[in-house]
């Protein structure tokens, strides 16, 4: 079975991000680029399924990113993916969700898969729309927010989280799946994994090989980012030392009353 996991490379989620009011861009100084944390869960799911199914199951990692970020993919290979594919092209710069999902879906079609696993959300764009768009472009069934998954009788069976509870669902293969964060903590790369990753292949793909019928990149997008600005400054608030419970409570109550919140 061929499992493909799509990953995104994002600014470190644990860094306190700041927008430069002048340039209106994210201040990248001191902010590392890492695997989107949600995608590490997707990769963990793929590796678990590979272990369970055994045989000739392989896990390929796919990303669309500038060539300069290629080495960031080694972490996924160190965790246990067999190989990787990097779609990189200046023509993709500035692609919105519509354009990037379209391009990625064409690349995935070229790569081929029995099971496609996508992280549920990206930490930077946080749209959460890419898995749905990919599945539709690929005309493939989609199951989302999986917290348990198994492959039996040629079908994918998952337990998935919903907004108000959970469901058991079954999908025919090939299909696409997204993972919930309750699937299981992503594994650490072992030293052996890190050494082995250096020898694994990262294949390159360009837009010319995809045979696209529509333009991508900023020019082919259906949305335009008009502004990207820091949020209104929340002035440093009051700090009150409470001598005891009653005075602390009174301070909060008076403050809420003044703001008409009680």
């Amino acid at each position, binding site marked *: 079975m061929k499992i493909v996991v799509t990953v995104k490379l994002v600014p470190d989620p644990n860094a306190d991000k700041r927008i430069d009011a002048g340039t209106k861009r994210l201040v990248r100084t001191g902010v590392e680029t890492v695997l989107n944390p949600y995608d590490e869960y997707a990769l963990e799911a793929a590796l678990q399924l590979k272990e369970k199914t055994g045989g000739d199951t392989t896990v390929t990692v796919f990303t669309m990113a500038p060539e300069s970020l290629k080495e960031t993919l080694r972490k996924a290979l160190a965790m246990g993916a067999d190989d990787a594919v990097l779609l990189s092209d200046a023509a993709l710069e500035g692609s919105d*969700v*519509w354009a990037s999902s379209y391009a990625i879906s064409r690349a995935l079609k070229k790569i081929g898969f029995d099971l496609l696993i996508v992280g549920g959300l990206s930490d930077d764009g946080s749209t959460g729309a890419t898995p749905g768009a990919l599945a539709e472009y690929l005309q493939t069934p989609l199951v989302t927010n999986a917290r348990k998954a198994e492959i039996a009788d040629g079908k994918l069976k998952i337990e998935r989280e919903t907004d108000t509870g959970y469901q058991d669902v079954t999908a025919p293969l090939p299909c696409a799946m997204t993972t919930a964060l309750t699937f299981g903590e992503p594994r650490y790369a072992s030293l052996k994994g890190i050494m082995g990753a250096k020898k694994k292949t990262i294949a390159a793909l360009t837009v010319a090989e995809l045979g696209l019928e529509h333009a991508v990149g900023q020019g082919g997008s259906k949305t335009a980012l008009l502004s990207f600005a820091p*949020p209104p400054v929340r002035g440093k608030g009051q*700090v009150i030392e409470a001598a005891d419970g009653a005075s602390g*409570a009174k301070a909060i109550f008076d403050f809420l009353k003044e703001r008409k919140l009680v």
Partner: protein
Amino acid sequence: MQNVLVYVQHKNGQTPKVTFEMATQARKLADQLGGKAHALVVGAGSSQLAQTLKTYPLDTVHVNDDADVDRYLLDPVIDYLEAAAKAIGPSLVLVANTLTGKDVAGRLVARLNAGICADAVDFKLEGGKVVAVMPKLGGAAITNCELLAGDYGVVTIRPNAFAAQAGGSGAAVQAIEKPAGKNYGVVVEKDVEESSGELALEEAPVVVAGGRGLGGPEPFDTLLKPLASALGGAVGASRAAADAGWVPYSLQIGQTGKTVSPPLYIAVGISGAIQHKVGMRSSGTIVAINKDGQSPIAEFSDLLVVGDAFAIVPELTKLVQAAKS
């Protein structure tokens, strides 16, 4: 884009409050774009829910109680939405920014060849242009994003960001025919509801959240719950509290947890690390109770009371209860 179509997410007729926020906003958008405001509600319990929806300022509510909607995972919903959008003509589709809503929105992007703006908290319409305002990067940036001229656009809406207001002259409730569609065959074998169709945390007007400073699971019930109830709100938690197993992960606010923006957020015993901050910093008013006046939360609270939460919270609960009665 001229008309507006609201996707009504529900289970047996139970729908989150954000549905009514979208129905109200749909009217405003449709008026500005010079079109009509529609809603689509399909699956078991839809006819009953349509009776409530028609008291909101919509023009038409499209309904089908089709049992296939609940039998298959979203496939029929997408077919209905595609059919409704194409029947109505060029339109802006509003979907709640929930787990289900994200799936729906993504699939519509491809089905309708539409641009998407996610997690909108406001709209700006100028000269026929639709611009959505959205916090990004955990609230570190506010972006304005334009849906470029096209037949369709999709916007996911953050719960609690828009007002819900019933009114209007009563929408027409109209049956929508089951479309031929393409069902990919994802079957729902078992469906378990753990809460009654409410998005408790994201929709609560007040969130009282606890962190490591509470020291264990009990204070969430004995300390925070009474205050949250008195304020008509819900209890949330920091990652530290969820990781310690004091509360279920469904209460976790922040990165890898939920994003909330209630009018009032009360943080109790939460230091305010970045992973918490990104999930709550766009709340209206932020009040913190912490024993450390130097904790990071001081930087983004409107009021920080330095003191013993175990002494302050019960007194505050009493004051709020007294004010109510």
